[in-house]
């Protein structure tokens, strides 16, 4: 019977079916390989991680923020059903993404994997994530709710205690064989989960009713609703629109490069710097907290904050600019009279400089805050220590910073290239990346378990040693032949790379890498070619989406 509820579930399935089939299938394959070798605990962990990934990603449906089926608002369907059907689907799909592979492995390999409790937890997590992301269109509120949801998930696991039969994680990993006792929920636990899902459902239904009536609409003047920056909306959008609104300076019109730097800085660089500055202000408080509480957690948090500028910079920039059209690159940018190599070079440079500057701010803050830790009082004042370091390492410090900066720029450029490939060959790139990650995981597990000889790793390293120079030559050749890279740009890149190579060799020699095992030393040398490879592959891959 084709009812509104069935139609809504069908629509949910259509929007999520690819990832729903792909990820569990790959996890099953991986789990099957491991279970056959007796490592069923590792198989359980992989299935669980895949299920958690599904639970986190499913509720978005890959559509717009807030309630994903908002196009159905105009359809004759009650809000209770409009929310209930996709929520039930999300629960069932997330649960099935664990349950079916685990059941298959139990039958096929006899691995004693827990079934219902883990599947229920996976489904409950998906409902929790849906609850945090469907209830509001406001990006900042949604981020806050997401954080609350993750905390609640942690509390839920702690309170329900599904892993209580395993004394410690260490012990669990040493057991090697999974057991249905690994993840157990009592009848009361199931009741608690049902109650939680019911509460979340009511909350979403109320919020969606508001969205449906238009009470939750953001003002059209809100820049976060803007098309270029936008419809998906996230915390970065809020930060960006605030930065652009508050810190604004005149666009220079003296040259295209000056104008483009202004564009990049205003929209993408400034938020990274602001995040860096804010975190730099937080770091002394974290250090003080660590000192007062004698806990390492604040220090871990302080260390983790260093990832924020990188994620903000790389996540938002480099032709990841969202637009309303289906174009891979917005026409506004693609139709600029500027070469692809210049444009991407500038974007990488601005992003790298801003991330680096943010890190420097945070590092200085950390350095100045270290005396707040009682254990480090004996090390003297930060100024004196810095002077000592500069005196001791001098030029090497500078060359280290230069090499670090170049490597960061290379990483950003290569990520941009991967994103461009994903833009031009979405599914193939995704499958390739997932297959590569799985291959590496299986290889590492195989070596760790002693199923294959460690020499296999050497073979892979040598393959990389050959692949990097070959790939560099091919990519530079393609970029030159396609007219994407001019001879002048190529010569400049070679010059800059020569400096980088000299500094890298010196650092590698000082670090004793040249005395390392043959494959590792050769790989370290070959890796110095990566910046040059990025010079070729990044503009070339981006030209694929600029001129699709």
């Amino acid at each position, binding site marked *: 019977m084709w009812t509104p509820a069935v139609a809504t579930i069908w629509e949910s399935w259509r929007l999520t079916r690819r990832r729903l089939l792909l990820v569990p299938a790959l996890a099953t394959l991986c789990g099957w390989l491991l279970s056959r070798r007796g490592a069923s605990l590792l198989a359980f962990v992989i299935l669980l991680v895949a299920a958690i990934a599904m639970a986190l990603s499913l509720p978005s449906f890959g559509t717009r923020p807030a309630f994903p089926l908002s196009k159905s608002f105009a359809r004759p369907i009650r809000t209770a059903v409009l929310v209930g059907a996709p929520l039930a689907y999300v629960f069932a799909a997330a649960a099935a993404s664990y349950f079916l592979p685990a059941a298959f492995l139990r039958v096929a390999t006899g691995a004693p994997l827990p079934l219902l409790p883990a599947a229920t937890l996976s489904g409950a997590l998906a409902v929790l994530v849906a609850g945090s992301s469907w209830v509001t269109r406001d990006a900042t509120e949604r981020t806050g709710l997401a954080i609350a949801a993750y905390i609640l998930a942690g509390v839920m696991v702690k309170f329900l205690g599904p892993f209580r039969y395993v004394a410690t994680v260490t012990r669990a990993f040493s057991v090697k064989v999974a057991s249905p006792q690994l993840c157990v929920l009592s009848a009361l636990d199931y009741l608690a989960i049902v109650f939680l899902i019911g509460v979340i459902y009511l909350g979403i239904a109320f919020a969606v009713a508001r969205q449906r009536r238009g009470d939750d609409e953001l003002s*059209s*003047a*809100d*820049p976060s*609703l*803007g*098309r*270029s*920056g*936008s419809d998906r909306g996230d915390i970065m959008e809020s930060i*960006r*629109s605030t930065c*652009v609104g508050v810190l604004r300076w*005149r*666009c*220079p*019109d*003296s*040259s*295209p490069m*000056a*104008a*483009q730097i*202004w*564009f990049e800085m*205003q*929209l993408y660089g400034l938020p990274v710097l602001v995040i860096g500055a804010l975190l730099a202000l937080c770091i002394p408080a974290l250090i003080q907290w660590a000192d007062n509480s004698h806990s390492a957690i604040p220090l871990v948090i302080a260390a983790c904050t260093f990832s924020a500028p990188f994620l903000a910079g790389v996540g938002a920039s480099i032709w990841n600019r969202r*637009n*309303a*059209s289906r*174009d891979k690159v*917005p*026409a*506004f940018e*693609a*139709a*600029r*009279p*500027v*070469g*692809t190599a210049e444009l991407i070079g500038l974007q990488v440079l601005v992003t790298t400089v801003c991330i680096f500057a943010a890190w420097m701010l945070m590092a200085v803050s950390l350095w100045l805050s270290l005396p707040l830790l009682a254990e480090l009082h004996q090390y003297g004042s930060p100024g004196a220590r810095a002077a000592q370091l500069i005196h001791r390492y001098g030029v090497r410090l500078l060359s280290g910073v230069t090499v670090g900066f170049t490597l960061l720029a290379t990483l950003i450029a290569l990520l941009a290239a991967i994103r461009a490939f994903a833009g031009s060959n979405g599914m193939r790139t995704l499958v390739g990346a997932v297959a590569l990650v799985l291959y590496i995981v299986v290889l590492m597990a195989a070596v760790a378990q002693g199923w294959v000889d460690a020499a296999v790793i050497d073979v892979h390293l040598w393959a990389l040693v050959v692949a990097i120079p070959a790939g560099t030559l091919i990519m530079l050749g393609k970029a030159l032949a*396609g*007219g994407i890279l001019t001879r002048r740009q190529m010569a400049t890149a070679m010059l800059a790379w020569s400096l980088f190579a000299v500094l890298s060799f010196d650092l590698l020699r000082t670090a004793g890498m040249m005395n390392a095992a043959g494959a590792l030393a050769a790989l370290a040398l070959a890796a110095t070619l990566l910046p040059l490879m990025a010079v070729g592959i990044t503009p070339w891959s981006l030209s694929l989406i*600029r*001129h*699709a």
Partner: protein
Amino acid sequence: MTTLVEVDALSRRYGSTIALDNVSLKAEVGLVYGLVGANGAGKTTLIKHLLGLLRPHQGKVRVFGLDPVRDPVAVLRRVGYLSEQRDLPEWMRLEELLRYTRAYHPSWDQAYADQLLENFGLDRSKRFSDLSQGMRAQAGLVVAVAHRPDLLVLDEPSSGLDVVVRQDILDAIVRTVVEDGRTVIFSSHLLDEVQRMCDHVTVLHEGRVAVQGPVDEVRAMHRVSQVRFPKHLDSTPAIEGALSIAGDGRSWSVLHTAALESLREAVAQSGGEIVESRIATLEEILIARLRRSNRQRQAA
């Protein structure tokens, strides 16, 4: 005349869908070229090829004698472009967009930009997120023409513009560009607009060129004749040379490409007579051709 744009046997596919099939087009200096067609006919795809935003799967595209994919900077510097999406950065103020665009175009004419802004009544301190759809189109138009491009490419420029702005300002802009000896290529759904403004028209249908040529010639090739029969006809009469026949009973309206005398003979053979005949409008031609194409597809 100098050829500014040359598209030769251009084909493009999106998966299994044929977006452009063996399309050829030449644009000379100082003329206005209109691209007409239903949704999905391939107008925007063709325009994107001209800008180098799409790489031809088959065929050749040359703008100013250059390949826009291989040499985008030299081509785009001399082109003004208004996209159908109007995807201008929402966070920018109009003043900032003008300065930003000016940096790329040394030929920027600030006085002309100021005049257009005044004509449109646009506030340059406003962000794009605060502008209506029509205002965005107007701002996009200013940015596209203020550097006095050699080639102005407008993708559905009228969408979002009210009828007064469309007739007064858009027409004036296009006229100014052409009087300066520059070229305009624009796509539109509004056939009266194309008929009024264009020197040359290309009708695209399902990725193919259905009709192409100077507007006057294309129109002159097609006539609408009123045919009267002595008796009431229950079904559409078969008349040789007719592209479409509409009507009922004794009076029928026939759109035809055949010469009037040939049609008169064909009608006479069917027992009817032509009572009135005039040159067809572009709208009538397009509708007749689309219906005929649909009929042929259904028959096949």
